[in-house]
């Protein structure tokens, strides 16, 4: 296949737009990782849980996936708060390994739960606008990719402004920068952690809706998204929302450009992002933009 500028425009635009999805998925993980230095191994599964929640709201209540977030956001927020309060805060004080294993337990529970309720078959959020496309010049772009990008941008900006402008947001930033000092300033770390995890779960609910519109999903779809979002964080560097945004774009581009330059090889498309993360991890574990 000949590489031309026109031919390259499609994968470029798609990669950037798709990157928006990865940004939303990664933001929740980034927040928890930034505050507690803990990787929530169950994050990918929580995103998939969000997809299934939207599916349930759609099939049982006939709600649009985006509208279902009106219920989904507070539900996931509350659930996250409780999980952090009763499980992770406790194990976190024992050791990092214990907390890691606890989040692993959450991952299996979520997988088992959705598999028991929705079977192991692939599902998708079949809305009527899911398969619409529009043209930009010679390039045809699926509408759902644009929604991903808008969603990614919106969540990133909302989270960034929240962390900068509100009291709680500043408390979270403070605890992530230096916990003992933050505690001396009257911030209760456990409470801050609970809110951080709750917000991360709410992000997962949004990510679940976008993910469900973009790809089909099954109970075991979660772990790949964990690795993708970890890759996005590593590429973008910790604690920087804008960095995560750039990381998401790079990640989306790796996937689409890798597939395009290799002549549509499924193998390259499947492996390229993982290899990118692995290489970056082994060369600069703190991330490209990290300190």
């Amino acid at each position, binding site marked *: 296949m000949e590489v031309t500028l026109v031919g390259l425009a499609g994968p470029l635009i798609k990669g950037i737009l798709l990157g928006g999805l990865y940004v939303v998925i990664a933001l929740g993980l980034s927040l928890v990782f930034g505050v507690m230095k803990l990787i929530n191994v169950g994050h990918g599964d929580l995103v998939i849980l969000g997809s299934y929640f939207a599916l349930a709201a759609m099939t049982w209540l006939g709600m649009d996936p985006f509208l279902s977030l009106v219920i989904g956001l507070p539900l996931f927020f509350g659930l996250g708060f409780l999980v952090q309060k009763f499980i992770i805060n406790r194990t976190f004080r*024992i050791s990092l390994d214990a907390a890691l294993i606890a989040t692993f337990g*959450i991952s299996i529970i979520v*997988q088992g*739960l959705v598999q*028991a309720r929705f079977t192991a078959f692939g599902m998708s959020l079949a809305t009527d606008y899911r398969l619409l496309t529009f043209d930009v010049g010679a390039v045809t772009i699926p509408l759902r990719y644009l929604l991903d990008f808008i969603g990614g941008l919106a969540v990133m900006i909302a989270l960034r402004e929240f962390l900068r402008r509100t009291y709680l947001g500043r408390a979270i930033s403070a605890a992530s920068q230096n916990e003992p000092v933050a505690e001396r300033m009257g911030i209760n770390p456990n409470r801050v952690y609970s809110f951080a995890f709750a917000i991360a779960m709410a992000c997962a609910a949004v990510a679940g809706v976008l993910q469900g519109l973009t790809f089909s999903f099954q109970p075991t779809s979660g*772990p790949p998204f964990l690795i993708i979002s970890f890759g996005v964080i590593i590429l973008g560097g910790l604690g920087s929302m804008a960095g995560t945004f750039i990381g998401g774009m790079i990640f989306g581009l790796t996937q689409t450009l890798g597939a395009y330059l290799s002549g549509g090889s499924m*193998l390259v498309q499947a492996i390229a992002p*993982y*290899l990118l993360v692995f290489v970056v991890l*082994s060369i600069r574990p703190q991330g490209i933009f990290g300190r």
Partner: protein
Amino acid sequence: MKIPRLTTLASVAVLVVLALFPVIGVPLSWLNYLFTFFIYLALANMWNLLAGYTGLICLCPHAFVGLAGYTLAIGTWVGVPFQAGLIAGAAVAALFALIISYPVFRMKGIYFAIGTLILPEVLKAWFNFWRPVGNAYQGMGAGYSVKGVAGVTLGDTYWLALAIAAASIFLVHIILRARLGLGLKAIRDNENTAASSGVNIFRLKLSSFLIAAFIMGLAGAAYFIFSPRIQPTGGFTISWLLLPLMATVIGGEGSEEGPIIGAAIVTFLRFLLADYGAWSLLIQGIILLVVVVVMPQGIAGLLRQVGAYRFPQKLFQAAEGKIRKA
């Protein structure tokens, strides 16, 4: 003549009794349960060596198991007997560990965990498309059957698994009492202090990583002799990570008896919950959470805390004293 210690004698006796099981006509279902138990035990022991004694939260046992299984399966397709394939599989797993050791040991703590978690995903994707021998067949992805194992009885695989499990216990026992074990524990407790005390961190970590990869590969290949069909989704399934991890955490990480207790519980749960499909995953997850929150040291830690070992220990010592006197 030096009298062997009573604990040594007891473990040898247990081993002999277990080895006699297929001969004395124990029901086949029992052999099946015990086979599974031995495989999990070997995996859990090696995971314990990495996580409990070296401080490496290694999330890639399924990479070793899958690679060994594929080596075995592909080997039988090009005429390698499965006995040689078993060793070759373990060797390939260890070779893989050697190749990845340089990049992954640059990562510390949580980064190491995620870095190792990526590898099986890469391998799974790779084996989905890579098919060196034989024609692709429909609907199975890049699956292979293991050829030439039709004559292998359950008794044979049982002995094989027993040998691997016993070797894994013995190996950990030896390592812990050698210089290697001392160095590994020093690394686990504080890597920087260990390094400044003259412990060669990279070499020691590598030794334990290679040993673990080899034994995990051996256990994996033995499993695929028992169940002679491998696919990317089955060979690199996360269960191969989950089972040893759960067994070690439930039993007690960083103790020699922990993986044995844990592997027994995990095996029991697996057969008990076999009919419940997805619910079994859910229940295992809940058990894992409860154990981590309520007794982070696992069952072995709990037993130690309540002093459950003191009475049998006294009993053993008294008995040994009497034998010596006589």
